[in-house]
């Protein structure tokens, strides 16, 4: 297209605009300070801390059993995986081998959590780019998973189903049947998602070539989860450092190389298929046995440092415990995936338009309590 230069008296200047803290596209209490020239973004500066609760400081005062309950207030959409991370860290520190039954159930519920989180993400992703229908479709399927969780442990979101040493209760007698029903149901729904959004031309125009992140930058910014994998960076902790029963299953790591918003979308859609496959491999083979091994009522970790990495729906969660041998951790640090993924927002949003920023943020899949720990 040929550019025509029209001489006008208009002045162009940069200005600030606030996006949030109450903005539907931020999915929480996040404020972005945008420096804009016209509609072109020059700089994005996140302003954090609106809901910071200092979970790390609280952990220094709490027992290890109590800490588990704080973690599902971080990334509430991956609550079960967060719980699992702390339990695994404590169990590894105590050199406690949990029964196979526990490992398999943890993995199944972890993958259900991932699907549930991706369903919600898919719904709001569509909503962010202007397709309200997806929201209802995503929530419809997520509801089935939440019902399974409710029957299993009484909670739908902040589950606290894991305890150091195993699980709080055994699974409900209906669990296996309902999970199988869900697999049958959801296998017909992902193609529906594809028909509705993945192949949509308008959606392609909003997402392809938008918010491109190269592999080198992804690694340098510590991107993980679908954000890293969409840039061609193999970073699935489940593959590289398998935990629980993930070493017993076969699955493909969803990797795309484009690094744009559409690639991040595709990775998550493919991850839903992979999660279904993992659940299918395990659901018929839940070993018999105990659902928990006894631990001391007061858990004291040996002196030392312990690090546990798990893959939540958003990426790599790290639990770093420094123990001095008492019943509380001396220092506990959560390496949260959302925090690192947010830090690269400025890098990939500059030069785009405000609408592109919304689409980009939707595929970063930020959960604000995960960032404001």
């Amino acid at each position, binding site marked *: 297209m040929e550019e025509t230069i029209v001489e006008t008296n208009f002045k162009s200047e940069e200005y600030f605009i606030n996006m949030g803290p109450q903005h539907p596209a931020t999915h929480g209490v996040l404020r972005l300070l945008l420096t804009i020239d016209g509609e072109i973004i020059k700089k994005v500066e996140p302003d*954090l801390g609106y809901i910071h609760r*200092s979970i790390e400081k609280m952990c220094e005062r709490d027992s290890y059993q109590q800490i588990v309950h704080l973690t599902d207030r971080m990334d509430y959409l991956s609550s079960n995986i967060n719980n699992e991370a702390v339990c695994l860290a404590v169990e590894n520190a105590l050199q406690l081998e949990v029964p196979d039954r526990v490992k398999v159930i943890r993995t199944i519920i972890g993958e259900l959590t991932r699907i549930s989180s991706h369903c919600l993400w898919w719904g709001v992703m569509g909503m962010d780019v202007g397709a309200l229908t997806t929201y209802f479709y995503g929530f419809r399927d997520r509801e089935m998973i939440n019902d399974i969780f409710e029957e299993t442990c009484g909670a739908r979101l902040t589950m606290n189903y894991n305890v150091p040493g195993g699980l709080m209760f055994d699974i409900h007698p209906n669990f296996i049947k309902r999970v199988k029903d869900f697999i049958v149901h959801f296998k017909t729904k992902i193609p529906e998602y594809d028909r509705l959004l993945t192949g949509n031309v308008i959606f392609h125009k909003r997402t392809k070539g938008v918010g491109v992140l190269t592999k080198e930058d992804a690694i340098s*910014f510590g991107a993980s989860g679908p954000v890293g994998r969409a840039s061609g960076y193999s970073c699935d902790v489940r593959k590289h450092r398998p935990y629980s029963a993930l070493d017993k299953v076969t699955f493909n790591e969803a990797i795309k190389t484009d690094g744009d918003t559409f690639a991040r979308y595709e990775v998550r859609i493919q991850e839903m298929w992979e999660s279904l496959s993992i659940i299918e491999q395990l659901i018929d083979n839940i070993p018999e046995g105990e659902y928990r091994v006894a631990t001391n009522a007061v858990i004291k970790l040996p002196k*030392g440092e312990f690090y546990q990495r798990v893959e939540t729906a958003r990426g790599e969660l790290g639990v770093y415990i*420094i123990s001095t041998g008492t019943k509380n951790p001396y220092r506990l640090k959560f390496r949260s995936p959302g925090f690192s993924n947010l*830090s690269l927002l400025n890098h990939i949003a500059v030069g785009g338009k405000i609408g592109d920023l919304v689409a980009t943020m939707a595929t970063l899949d930020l959960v604000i309590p995960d960032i404001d720990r």
Partner: protein
Amino acid sequence: MTNQSLQELIGSWFPNPEAEKDSDVVDVAENEEGSEDISTTQEPINPSLLVFSEEGSQFLNIIVQPEQLHSLMAQLKSNPDSQFDYLFCLSGVDWGAELGVVYHLESTTHRHSIVVKVKTPDRENPTLDSVYDIWMTAEFLEREVYDFFGITFNNHPNLKRLFLTDEWEGFPLRKDYVDEINMVIK
């Protein structure tokens, strides 16, 4: 690469003055300021600059002096045998007498990991070098450490409070932090 060979590799970049006599210094050219510092200050005060340890941790731990931090980190990232290009965790820690930072590093090529620790005894005005120019993720992570531990980072592009307001007094994750209103002590 195993922890043992990593330790040998990294030890060869920063030979300590006593061992220097009988060890082959292979890559002198690559030891920019690091080796110069050591060779000019051959005093008994500096017996060993790097302390390696595997005790009580699943990783190989290196304790490095603040002056050596940046050159060590640059080497860890750029050396083709180590290639620690992924800084997956950066934590501030208050060890009581000392404040410091713990860096968890992984190589996406070789898939080995390492932990680097740096400590400073200065609690009034603790200062360390930023590693922002090596790993871009450090920009936010170091701001978080500054916010909660009050450690300032040299050469950081935008060092200010991240979560707390600019008027906040004190650094909450330090062990001696007192807040009678907001903190519930059991």
